[in-house]
């Protein structure tokens, strides 16, 4: 039931205290946090560096802006309204299309402009932000999800999390929602964690509630067939985030757009440790490989090549 610290150390597993003291405190200075905690700032940063992310269509900052919404959205394609300071998928309204005056959600149900306005208004008054602080609502293009991952998730589309250490992509995973996780992609609620090989973009191991499994419990899909298309783009985009944020320990979340390829959805300054469980592998040995590169100047592309050679199963 319990193991010993020395065994964990031998397996190279990073614990919470190590993450906080040796990683975050050291490589992610506090003053840099806003650029990843605030999705609007991240978005502008990504756009400036020409990284691919869903395009920002507009920002609703005031109740005055809310009144202008109808006019603004009149000739908009599919879009998403989300709080700049939200987390955990809270307050995200996806509008996949129009049906006359109605805004149609991916589920097929339609809402009218009043409800869209109310949603934006709730966002800016802080309904979804931490501590209820007032926020801004971002309107961005909806991602046209690729069907490459169909059947791997009980609900929704999985996103890919890549841990970037000092600019090197060191580990990757995806979280697949299940009926048990109530459609949520949260590992400790029973979602499936699937490790992805940095070298190939293919599935490594899958775990649910700490136990290995081979098939998705609800869809029956064989998890070993998970294979991320345009994988090099994923790792390259992720490692480029190092230059724009200068954060040494970063989690990058990406999704795959049918036409535009990998899109960065959000950055995380405190990425969790469950990725080790999904990969059935500790992060420490990989950090050490990267630490050994200290002093060698490499571009993001070179780092990607290096990482894909090194971190292959």
């Amino acid at each position, binding site marked *: *039931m*319990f*193991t*010993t*610290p020395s*065994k*964990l*150390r031998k*397996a190279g*597993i990073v*614990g*919470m*205290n*190590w993450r*906080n*003291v*040796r990683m975050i405190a*050291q490589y992610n200075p506090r003053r840099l946090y806003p650029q990843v905690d605030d999705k609007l700032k991240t978005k502008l940063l990504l756009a400036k560096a020409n990284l691919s992310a869903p395009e920002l269509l507009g920002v609703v900052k005031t109740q005055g802006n809310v009144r202008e919404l109808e006019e603004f959205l009149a000739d908009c394609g599919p879009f998403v309204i989300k709080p700049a300071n939200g987390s*955990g998928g*809270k307050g995200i309204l996806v509008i996949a299309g129009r049906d006359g005056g109605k805004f149609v959600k991916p589920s097929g149900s339609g809402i009218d402009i009043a409800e869209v306005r109310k949603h934006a208004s*709730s966002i800016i*008054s*802080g*309904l979804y932000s931490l*501590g*209820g602080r007032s926020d801004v609502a971002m309107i961005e293009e909806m991602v046209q999800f690729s069907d490459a991952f169909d059947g791997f998730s009980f609900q929704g589309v999985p996103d890919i999390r890549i841990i970037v250490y000092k600019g090197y992509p060191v580990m990757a995973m995806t979280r697949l929602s299940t009926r048990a996780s*109530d459609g949520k992609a*949260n590992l400790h*609620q029973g979602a499936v964690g699937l490790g992805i090989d940095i070298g190939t973009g293919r599935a490594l191991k899958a*775990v649910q509630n*700490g*136990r290995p499994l081979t098939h998705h419990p609800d869809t029956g899909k064989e998890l070993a067939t998970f294979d991320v298309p345009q994988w090099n783009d994923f790792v390259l985009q992720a490692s480029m985030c190092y230059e724009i944020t200068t954060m040494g320990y970063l989690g990058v979340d990406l999704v795959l757009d049918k036409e535009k390829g990998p899109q960065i959805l959000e950055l995380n300054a405190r990425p969790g440790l469950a990725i*080790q*469980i999904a990969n*059935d*592998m*500790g992060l420490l040995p990989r950090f050490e490989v990267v630490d050994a590169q200290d002093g060698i100047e490499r571009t993001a592309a070179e780092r990607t090549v290096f990482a894909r050679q090194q971190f292959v199963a």
Partner: protein
Amino acid sequence: MSTKQLQLKVIVLVLLVLGIGSVWYKNQVLGFSLTPEKQETVWTVESKITFDGDNAPAEVVLSMPENRKDMVVMDVRNIAPGYRFNFVNRDGERYGVWKSNGPVQGRQELFLRGTVYRRNGNSGNNVSPVPQEIVVDNESLRKAAVDFVASLDRSGSIRQRAVHLLQALTNPVNQDAVYLLKEAKVFGGKIKLARYLMRKAGLQASSVRGLFLGERSRKQKLKGYIEVADGDKVLLLNPRSAEVEDADKFLVWQYNDKPVLEVIGGSNSSVTFSTLSSKILASRAAVAAGKHSGNFLVDFSIYSLPVSEQNAFKLLLLIPIGALVIVILRNLVGISTSGTFMPILIALVFLHTTLLIGLALFLVVVSVGLILRSYLSHLNLLLVPRISAVLVFVIFIYVAIAVISHKIGLSAGLQITFFPMIIISWTIERMSVLWEEEGPKDVLVQGGGSLLSASLIYLVMQNRYVGHIAYSFPEILLVLLAIIIIIGSYSGYRLTELYRFEPMIKDK
């Protein structure tokens, strides 16, 4: 990186040295006890001065007992209406002076009450200083004194020699002794004569006037005794019985040759003393004693505050200990709680309600609150109105619990008011958001973690030893700070991680 770590180590070291050092100093030197039981005997000494007024403004001067290394006088209070009282220093000695507000007539009574405490383990080792020795002009008296001393047996311990001298002095067949005693006035009295002879015999002696601090004694007069230095001890000799008395119970009131009491504008004056012994906590005594010596470490103890403020500060000093428990539980054990410091506040409530009642009340309030709060979810209220609505619910629940428990005769329910409503409201709010977002399992885990933490903190806080150390040695906070810093920079595994990552270990 390494300079940062060095800095950290230096800070931790400095904090530890300062903290532990001052605890040690207060314990060893100032006599603060490390354990709560230790009690010290203190004596309340009341001096009663009486005199007849001469229909003129009166001034009364009473010499004050001196603080000595072993005996400490604290809290002197004057009870004498119609008089102004203050302390004055004359030639380095302290006097209490009363001045009447106008002419006084008839029997006057003045009281002065003081508390005397023997500092723990520090038996006095200094003979009182001696004023200028008397010069005796009378040739034959000087000769008799020399002969008397010469006739004494010079062997034996100091104690034996001193006792022997006093016995010889009261021996009616010793011619020199009889002659000297007859002329004792020349020396300033029998006691000073004895002191004079002791010095001539090469003993380090001084005369003192003072009281024995009995358990309960009334109307004592100051009596003269002789102190003789014996190595690092002081012998207290009773010149009347030629016996050694227990110096530990003796309060030296005066060691100069001046009068104890002077009354100007009055006659028939006298002063008597009553003593009463009682036990008080050692730390209390040490504080009062230290206050006199103006030690800043003592001033830094909450006992130097007015009693009414002390209780509030006692609680205040316990909070960092709660914080330490939280830090340990979070960073070393890995228990998650709802709201970082909420368990401390709940633990403070448990201090009022006791653990089981507190837990029961908390569970009732929060679960009923969660049920009521679930109706709010549909309304999509913003944070502030939402939390305000929860607050109203909480007050309803408080009232309901109080009324119902009163009706069924369970007075424990009335203690519900100890729970801070705002904290409870926030707890309910956070729990209910957690329920919606993560599900009931997380609510149970976090709620359980919070209650476990609160209970542990309560157990630590209500511990007598912990409380005593926190009150008496606030500088222990420095040690606490050092420990928190050490834990804050600890990068090893948490206890729960040994469980969480266990499936990843292959060679079981």
